[in-house]
């Protein structure tokens, strides 16, 4: 591979695949990759090696914390406590013994509870650690364009989605598959629209169909578009957060327009490993506001605060109201 024909070297391609290239070089690599069959072969070779290596899985046993660790843990925690609490001046021997026994009993109870907890946690461990980094881009793409269009449309009743603009995800970001007539825009969001600290952020199985109304298409959809472009360009989470903050600071990213909302009524979506397709719901967007202004999360309130933007770089508050029917009109559970 000569530098005359290829703007970046093989080693840099590898770094790109590992997510180790700066954003500008990553973008250059991606652009070239789309046009260069030779480089696509190289990339396929690297991925093939990586996948072959993944064949070697190590089955882990399921023990909890060993007694040795428990003892060390107790010792450390007790040392901390005794450093904080001055011992009584006059000790009552009987009482001391009673407390020793009570303490021992408590330790046994904690150990049993801990073992049970960890056994349960271990079963779920794959879920929490399985998506530590981005998977290959192909895993986030849907090979069947028509299936992605149908899934996007399933976010809202046909009366809305039939005339909506439909976006599908390609190698470089979202592209228009079908032009719309009513100002709504439907698409299937991917895992990176989750909060940045979410364990699902890189889950390639996530498919979130949504139909934005015109106000949200103008002011919320750009966030999805921007996050997606940055992910595909190989930016780190920290770079993405900085870029989003800067986007709001310099007004490149708009504040939510009054009335901005989104339909999420698909029964075919996959929102996370924990909640699957969830329940049909509507989402409403506002500039940062207190959740009490909507009575969100109060007992028996149908309104909940969506954590999507909580603590994130986007100064947006998002409320969710679940509804009783999927987009096809069938009855659904309401949370």
């Amino acid at each position: 591979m000569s530098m005359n024909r290829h703007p970046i070297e093989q080693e840099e391609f590898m770094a790109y695949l590992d997510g180790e290239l700066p954003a500008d070089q990553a973008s250059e690599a991606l652009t070239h990759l789309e046009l260069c069959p030779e480089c696509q072969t190289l990339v396929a070779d690297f991925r093939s090696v990586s996948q072959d290596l993944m064949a070697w899985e190590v089955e882990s046993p399921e023990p909890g914390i060993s007694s040795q660790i428990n003892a060390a843990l107790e010792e450390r925690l007790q040392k901390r406590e005794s450093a904080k609490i001055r011992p009584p001046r006059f000790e009552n021997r009987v009482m001391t013994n009673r407390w020793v026994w009570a303490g021992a009993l408590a330790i046994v109870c904690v150990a049993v509870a801990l073992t049970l907890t960890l056994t349960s946690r271990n079963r779920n461990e794959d879920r929490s650690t399985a998506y530590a980094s981005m998977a290959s881009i192909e895993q986030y793409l849907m090979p069947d364009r028509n299936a992605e269009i149908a899934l996007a449309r399933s976010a809202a009743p046909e009366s809305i989605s039939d005339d909506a603009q439909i976006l599908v995800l390609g190698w470089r970001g979202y592209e228009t598959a079908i032009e719309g007539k009513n100002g709504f825009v439907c698409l299937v969001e991917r895992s990176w629209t989750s909060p940045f600290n979410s364990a699902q952020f890189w889950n390639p199985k996530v498919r979130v169909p949504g139909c934005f109304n015109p106000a949200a298409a103008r002011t919320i959809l750009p966030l999805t578009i921007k996050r997606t472009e940055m992910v595909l360009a190989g930016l780190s989470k920290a770079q993405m957060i900085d870029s989003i903050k800067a986007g709001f600071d310099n007004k490149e990213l708009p504040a939510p327009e009054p009335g901005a909302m989104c339909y999420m009524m698909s029964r075919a979506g996959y929102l996370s490993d924990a909640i699957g397709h969830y329940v049909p719901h509507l989402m409403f967007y506002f500039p940062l506001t207190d959740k009490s202004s909507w009575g969100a999360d109060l007992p028996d309130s149908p309104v909940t605060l969506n954590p999507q933007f909580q603590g994130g770089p986007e100064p947006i508050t998002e409320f969710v109201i679940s509804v009783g029917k999927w987009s096809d009109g069938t009855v659904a559970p309401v949370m």
Partner: protein
Amino acid sequence: MTSDEALMLEFQGGSRAAFEELFARYRKPLYGFFGRRLNNPERADDLVQETFLAVIRAASRYEPRALVRTYLYGIALKLLAVERRKFLTSSTSGQSAPEPKTDGTPDYVLWVRQALEKLDAPEREILMLREYEQLSYSDISELLRIPVNTVRSKLFRSRLALKSYLESEAKTNPSLRPNTAQPHQRRRGMQ
């Protein structure tokens, strides 16, 4: 989700729950780390426990300058080096290190394992840290105390060499590749 670093600081402050969460997050990845390098499940499990014991004992000295992930694998690498030295000593005194267990190991795993064994040890370690532990180039550089550019160039060489070893063996025995032989649940691959 609370970050590893925040959990570590909470544990420093006396939170047992924070330790339990870290244990739950890293027990399996650490088991994989030792399991692949020692091919001895019992010792792998022991060393996972020893890693966490070291975390408990050194908790007061932890400073959030490095990621907890890197910190844990740093401890693991040290324990691994000690373990290997033990085997070296015992083998020079007449005892030999146990052979890797192959009973019931699928052919495609042996194929990968044997190809990895053909690599130079330092390059193999870099490759494994990247592929299995998913560490960044700078994390590996910090752990192995080598420049980032060296990490990158050695990683590149080792991947090409491994591809060549894997391909040559697969040509003579095409059923080795898991996607053409046994059904196999793939984990995440290269990004």
